[in-house]
């Protein structure tokens, strides 16, 4: 209907990318260049906070790609996010080296403390940054591939698919909670020191991570956009709207779904990897099904199937959470819960939908005013 949606970057996309680039340029200046006393200086804690939101936004974009465009409601995207986070966390743990409290050259603190003697095989190679980064993409990608290959081939759809994705993340959460798994159990991985030789707590590193998150989000958006505007993307959207018909037309539905699902999982993994050094901890709580549901809600709040809306929703909901947990610590769940109900009832297309509606109304008013 709208020809603009076929362009790689539509108007909405331009605004989104412009805001991201502005943030990527201005935040370093405001934080690092402008002296602290100035009214324009941005306190470092806000950098970490917004960096975190950017990671959530990338997760939301990834989720919107599968849900909004392919109709796969994944209630387990938090699992891919967390796996990416763990891969990054393992790299950061290996970087601590002898600076851990027990000063063990190889084993992370929690292993010394539980009397482990050797580094488990799963941890091998994580001292190398390129290897760890490859794992950030490969592990979530592989899990998504295996899971999707099984599920899409046997045509598990709708709520069944949603519930088994939930089972997947729940099983992973239980598994990572086990100390015997060797990923730090409930405490997870924490007390990071260096990232590529830079102190993760230094403001400069935080700013760099912030900029990296901006770039990742922008990149993720462009990739998602490229997918959905391509011919391949048209088929994907067709699958969302009428899966059986698309299959009857001769498309291998499961292959398309699998490709989108794997791509989305990798984006989520990348988001997790950027998230971990900025918040300073990764633990099995990230796998909890409630987290994945929340991610779905970000997308719904922003507007499903719009990509920009997903990012916007992630930003708004998380910012609201930050604000309300401080301002109304005992009542914020009412606000958050109420928001979810109101959004589903009154804004079925999310914030972006609301904006569009407003535009349409203005556009339809104009001719009547003139005529």
């Amino acid at each position: 209907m709208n020809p603009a949606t076929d362009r790689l970057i539509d108007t909405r996309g331009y605004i989104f990318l412009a805001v991201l680039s502005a943030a990527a340029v201005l935040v370093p200046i405001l934080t690092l260049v402008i002296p602290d006393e100035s009214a324009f200086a941005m306190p470092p804690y806000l950098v970490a906070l917004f960096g975190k939101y950017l990671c959530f936004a990338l997760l939301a974009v990834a989720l919107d790609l599968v849900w909004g465009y392919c109709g796969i409601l994944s209630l387990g995207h938090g699992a891919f996010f967390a796996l990416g986070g763990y891969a990054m966390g393992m790299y950061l743990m290996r970087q601590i080296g002898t600076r851990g409290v027990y000063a063990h050259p190889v084993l992370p603190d929690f292993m010394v403390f539980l009397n482990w003697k050797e580094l488990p095989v799963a941890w091998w190679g994580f001292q190398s940054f390129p290897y760890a980064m490859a794992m950030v993409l490969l592990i979530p990608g592989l899990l998504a591939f295996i899971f999707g290959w099984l599920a899409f081939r046997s045509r598990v759809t709708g709520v069944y698919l949603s519930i088994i994705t939930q089972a997947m993340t729940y099983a992973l959460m239980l598994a990572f909670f086990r100390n015997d798994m060797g990923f730090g159990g409930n405490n997870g991985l924490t007390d990071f020191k260096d990232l590529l030789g830079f102190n993760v707590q230094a403001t400069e590193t935080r700013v760099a991570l912030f900029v990296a998150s901006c770039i990742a989000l922008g990149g993720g958006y462009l990739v998602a956009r490229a997918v959905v505007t391509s011919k391949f993307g048209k088929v994907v959207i067709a699958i969302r709207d009428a899966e059986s018909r698309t299959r009857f037309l001769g498309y291998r539905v499961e292959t398309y779904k699998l490709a989108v699902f794997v791509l989305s999982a990798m984006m989520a993994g990348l988001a997790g990897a950027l998230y971990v050094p900025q918040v300073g901890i990764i633990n099995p709580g990230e796998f909890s099904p409630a987290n994945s549901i929340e991610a779905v809600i970000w997308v719904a709040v922003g507007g499903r199937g719009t990509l920009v809306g997903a990012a916007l929703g992630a930003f708004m909901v998380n910012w609201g959470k930050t604000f309300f947990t401080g301002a109304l610590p005992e009542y914020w769940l009412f606000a958050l819960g109420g928001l979810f109900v109101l959004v589903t009832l009154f804004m079925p297309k999310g914030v972006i939908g609301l904006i569009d509606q407003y535009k349409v109304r203005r556009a339809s008013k104009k001719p009547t005013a003139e005529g």
Partner: protein
Amino acid sequence: MSFTRRFMLRATGAAIGGALALASTGAAFAQGAGPIKVGILHSLSGTMAISETTLKDVMLMLIEEQNKKGGLLGRKLEPVVVDPASNWPLFAEKARELIAKDKVAATFGCWTSVSRKSVLPVFEELNSILFYPVQYEGEESSRNIFYTGAAPNQQAIPAVDYLMENEKVQRWVLAGTDYVYPRTTNRILEAYLKSKGVKQEDIMINYTPFGHSDWQTIVANIKKFGSAGKKTAVVSTINGDANVPFYKELGNAGIKATDIPVVAFSVGEEELAGIDTKPLVGHLAAWNYFQSVDNPINKEFIAKWRAFTKNAKRVTNDPMEAHVIGFNMWVKAVEKAGTIDSDAVIDAMIGVSVPNLTGGYSTMMPNHHITKPVLIGEVQADGQFNTVWQTSGLVVGDEWSDYLEGSKDLIADWRKPLSCGNFNVATGKCGGAAK
């Protein structure tokens, strides 16, 4: 709430990027005048709200009382309550917000070890002070954290000693929730029991997930393990939520304290308030404080607490006492230092001694842990504990356990010139984490 509005404006401003100029009209908060802010970082929602909400209330009461006495350094105290919602990364975020935005002088908070681990780097980076009120596994000593709960030697080892001497226990079930506190405590206990001549086949270790609710199989196994002809006891490090179904199942299975006593380290008056304790009479708990401790200072505290919460049946527990001690210590240290500056207060803290609620004095040691008496209590039909044994003196919290291989040579001493959280007495070197 002007600060939140400003924060909101600033947040939005930064999000949009360029619009920041509109927002940050105010300068950074002046710290010299006005009230002294005290951060309260306890989960008010999510799974840990069960335990932590009470601690928030006790902090509010202590601050209110201090203000009635004229505040601190001539300034009022102002509590800043946030809700980290049992979400560990959110703990770190909220800690950062408290320190960097609200400029709190000290923070009282956390319950789980993971929440403490999550905020630890934040407190160290921004050089602020955290008081941590819960019994934990030890193996940590940070310059910026004061541990007012029990270390394993202030709870677990005396409890095992008691059972060995008074109940002649020879067979041990170490049952815990699968996370770091039970893992470490059980490891320490296993080494300790073996050093006392207990054989491997007389120790059964069992881990269950958080919130485990179906205990039939495990209770049956305990019963089976206990029928080998030797006196058996269960040492439980089962975490909060899972305890109610566990004890209910024990009652259902007819395991009485006279047959197989269970000694718990995470079950206090608050937890028992949710259970019908009649079938549990005689099961034990080891803490550093019981509500039933009979002395005037405790009675006064209970009365004040009940008046504050407007609930005549409200119970008190050990972590609450830890906050009372921690808060009083902090007040004393600030008065001693004459400032709320973190470095000065951290230095002033060591050696500060305040009355605890069991009738003695607790002192902050150079390892940032405190001295405490150890009490063993038996569950009564009214949900209270009856103290059946007590250490004669005070026990110093031992941050690095002697029974763990990695930590037996480590000590912490934050006084100058050593100023180290993990000094290795064998190599004479301070480990990596210390600043």
